[in-house]
């Protein structure tokens, strides 16, 4: 298939970027989106040009490194997949495809489509962990955990930290990410003792990074490659409010 790509090109963090039109010719339908960009880049390199920079690592939908806002939707038009798992058969011959970085003030562009998502690492470093050794995997049922809680925690733990929630949110809010990372630990007995300090620290770090805050548009839910539900945001709101009250009076 032949496509017209409109790609965001930006020389560096402080450079002014703009959209560049690139023709993508003879793209096999079974190529993934990133493979399509590889083919385009090979041609650019052959012609002595500057290849389009983009992030990727595992290319199997588990690491959360790939990004890209495709036709205005982070990770593109397919539901529940990352860009690396999106295939060209989702597009039609002759289509024009707009490719932009994940845009947010807290995710500065490094170059072209590559953005710096280390703000997420700092949110995790603020409280997204358990500070004592919890040992290796316990015996099944050795530690009773409500089935409901185990399931919800597991669903939250599927977050790969890609940042699509931020990219999709009209306010560039990372609350689906922060909520997922908090719920993942807070719902389990090992995570409970540090629930309050975890939630306070993660939310404060989130605010300090210059992200926006959730106004309940639910765009994040719609684009999350792991289809994490905004229930984790409701839980984060509740836990933050309760933790603040406890901090104030205790």
């Amino acid at each position, binding site marked *: 298939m032949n496509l017209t790509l*409109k790609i*965001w090109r930006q020389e560096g963090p402080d450079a002014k970027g703009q*959209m560049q039109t690139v023709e993508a010719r003879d793209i096999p339908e079974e190529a993934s989106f990133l493979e399509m960009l590889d083919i385009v880049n090979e041609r650019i390199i052959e012609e002595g040009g500057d290849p389009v920079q983009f992030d990727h690592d595992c290319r199997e939908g588990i690491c959360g490194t790939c990004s890209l*806002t495709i*036709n*205005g*939707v982070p990770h593109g038009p397919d539901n529940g997949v990352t860009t690396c798992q999106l295939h060209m058969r989702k597009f039609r011959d002759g289509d024009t495809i*707009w490719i*932009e970085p994940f*845009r*947010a*003030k*807290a995710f500065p562009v490094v170059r072209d489509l590559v953005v710096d998502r280390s703000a997420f690492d700092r949110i995790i470093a603020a409280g997204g962990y358990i500070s004592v050794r919890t040992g290796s995997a316990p015996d099944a049922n050795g530690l009773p955990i409500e089935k409901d809680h185990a399931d919800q925690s597991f669903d939250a733990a599927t977050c790969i930290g890609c940042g699509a929630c931020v990219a*999709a949110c*009209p*306010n*560039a*809010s990372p609350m689906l990410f922060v909520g997922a990372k908090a719920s993942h630990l807070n719902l389990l007995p090992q995570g409970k003792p540090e629930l309050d300090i975890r939630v306070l620290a993660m*939310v*404060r770090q*989130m*605010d300090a990074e*210059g*992200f*926006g*805050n*959730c*106004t*309940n*548009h*639910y*765009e994040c*839910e*719609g*684009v999350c490659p792991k289809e994490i*539900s*905004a*229930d984790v*945001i*409701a*839980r*984060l*709101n*509740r*836990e*933050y*409010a309760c933790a*603040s009250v406890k*901090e*104030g*009076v205790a």
Partner: protein
Amino acid sequence: MSPLVSTICQFWSSSIGKKVVVALTGIVLVGFLAGHLAGNLLVYVGREATNDYAEFLMHLLHGAGIWIARAVLLTCFVLHIVATIQLTRSNRAARADAYEVKTSVRTTLSARVMIWSGLTILAFVIFHLLHFTVRIDQGLADLRDPLVDRHDTYGMVVRGFQNVPVSLFYIVALTLLCSHLSHGVASIFQTLGLRSKKTRGAIKVFSWIYAAIIWLGFISIPISIMLGLVHFD
């Protein structure tokens, strides 16, 4: 600073804390609207019922009641507005560079225009207070109840809404309020952490029904007056 004060300051300056303030003040305003509508619908009962009710409000707790209610409402209104303007500004700043192409997948028009529906409500509330509470129009302020010696609230409402531009502005503002509520009421539950998979459907329906009742209830009054169904005599 005492630890309590510093926690309160920190809560207010945090994104979630401010959202919680918006939600709690939103509850007060939403409750007020329901009560206000119930009172207003007395115009369908007639002049005596409407004016009795107005008199009752003015004399509640020997006249203190209305001032307590006004103080609570004003505080909530101001907190709600200051918080939402600050939140909107920080949210705009968080997406410094706009997308060339952005496609929505879930959000609604009502959710996207919250600040504009809100600011219209603010403009409307100022006008509405000058119109019916402060009564800058002497003609409306001087109306007397023909039976009992008191202000004629019923007559003021009828005369007020016989003015077509005023009624049209009222209907436009109430329509934006309906939009604000259709997103806002459901948002309260999410912001306070009371929404989950099990309840999300019910919350959405509740929010829509509440917004529709408020909208239809309030706009029915100027419409009935303009159509002559509710009249001065």
